[in-house]
């Protein structure tokens, strides 16, 4: 067992030596792999952040019903009881215009004079949470509410979240497709580099075969080279992603006073970074095995 492991260690060292002896092209290879993996990974990072925000913001559809300014208390009570009788409604919250106006002023730290308004511009409103996300049911409810006396305007707050989720889903499919294409590109690039290496080490391969080396013994240093290319490339990807998150969050901090809220880009979890590393190493390993096997077959035929 120990000699076998020692053999692998030797092959790993040979892989490292080959990378070191072509350090310039090896660095370019790391960068190419790194950037190629970075494109879908960065997309995934952004989509994950948007998805998390959408999850936090709302799980249910909401409807805001704004009432006419001259509405009477009786009309408000009638609407309230009508809403309570609806099976699609989960929660009802009534916001009187006076309270809404006070809240807005407090939030904006403004007085009536600041905005030049002589009277409260806000209407009374019902804010209802629905127990359905079905467009048919929501539209039916809106249609029935529109005709109620005293209702001025109805805004569906939850529909955008559905659209956003659909968009995220489509972007994810797009990212997976892009990732798939880039994996193919990486396999071609790494295979080609390993194929060129087999030509450089043609003599070593032939001598090894003559003195009894198996194909797996000959493949080993090339496979370790591919593995190291994958590892190096994934570290470049992780560095770019980390730099992206840090740069974005620093910029967001500076604009906090303008936006009134802190927007932070959440870094990917360690498991996702581990997946990136292992995926890149697997791509390198697969591509190099494939290339070495093909090249050695060709060498055998030509000799």
């Amino acid at each position: 067992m120990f000699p076998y492991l020692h053999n692998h260690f030797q092959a790993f060292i040979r892989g490292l030596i080959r990378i070191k002896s072509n350090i310039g092209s090896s660095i370019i290879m790391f960068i190419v792999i790194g950037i190629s993996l970075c494109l879908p990974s960065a997309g995934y990072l952004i989509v994950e952040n948007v998805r998390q925000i959408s999850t936090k913001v709302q799980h249910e559809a909401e409807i805001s019903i704004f009432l006419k300014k001259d509405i009477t208390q009786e009309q408000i009570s009638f609407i309230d009881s009508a809403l309570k009788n609806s099976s699609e409604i989960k929660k009802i919250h009534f916001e009187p215009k006076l309270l809404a106006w006070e809240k807005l002023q407090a939030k904006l730290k403004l007085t009536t004079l600041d905005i030049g308004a002589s009277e409260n511009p806000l209407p009374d409103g019902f804010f209802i949470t629905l127990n359905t996300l079905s467009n048919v049911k929501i539209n039916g409810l809106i249609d029935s509410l529109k005709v109620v006396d005293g209702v001025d305007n109805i805004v569906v707050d939850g529909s955008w979240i559905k659209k956003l989720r659909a968009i995220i889903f489509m972007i994810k499919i797009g990212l997976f497709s892009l990732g798939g294409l880039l994996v193919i590109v990486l396999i071609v690039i790494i295979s080609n580099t390993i194929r060129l290496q087999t030509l450089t080490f043609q003599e070593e391969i032939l001598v090894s075969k003559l003195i009894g080396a198996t194909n797996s013994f000959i493949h080993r240093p090339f496979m370790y080279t591919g593995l190291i290319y994958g590892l190096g490339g994934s570290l470049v990807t992780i560095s770019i992603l980390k730099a992206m998150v840090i740069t974005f969050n620093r910029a967001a901090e500076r604009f906090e006073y303008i936006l009134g809220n802190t927007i932070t880009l959440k870094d990917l979890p360690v498991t996702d970074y581990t997946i990136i590393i292992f995926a890149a190493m697997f791509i390198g390993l697969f591509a190099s095995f494939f290339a070495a096997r093909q090249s050695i077959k060709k060498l055998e035929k030509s000799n």
Partner: protein
Amino acid sequence: MISFSNVFKRYPGEMDALQDINIEISTGELVFVTGPSGAGKSTLLKLISAIEKPTSGSIIFENLNLAELKNKDMPFLRRKFGMIFQDHKLLYDRNCFENVVLPLEINDINPTDSARRVRAALNKVGLLNKEKVSPISLSGGEQQRLAIARAIVSRPSILIADEPTGNLDKGYADEIMNIFYSFQQVGVTVIVSCHELPISPIKFKQIHLINGKLTQPEDNVPLLT
């Protein structure tokens, strides 16, 4: 130990490289394969060492018919032979030690044993003081001795040398032949191909080939003595 029966070898699109070869090589024999260029000497050695398979006929080695050997088994059989080539086939990006240790790495020998055996092999061919040197800085004779060290390090039962002295002057050539004689003396089967029969101080067998056929040598050394 090695037995050829009606062996033919034809390369695609060419004439027969070997025709109807019937030979027996016993354990511990010194065998010279002689003949002019293109006679089939190298082909014969490639067949013995399982680098090539015969087109027809059988080659029996240790109860195995090499003609029927599966490709995946060929590397393991080759490890039983020590191969020496006219052009040495050394790896010039590795030092002498690393060249000689290669067969041991292939055989999964542990590093401590490997180091000891490599130094013993280098010592045997008089290159112990050059283990860290690149083969490129060695003379032709030294390079061939290094190739011999690589061939003997895995303690093969058969040494096969394809024109090992072809590119060397007489002094170096004698040195190399003396190394082969010393191995034969300790029971190793030594098969050497050469254009002309060298002067051997020990008993040997000659296999003389012309145009791929076994032939009686002109100098009247008995065939397969």
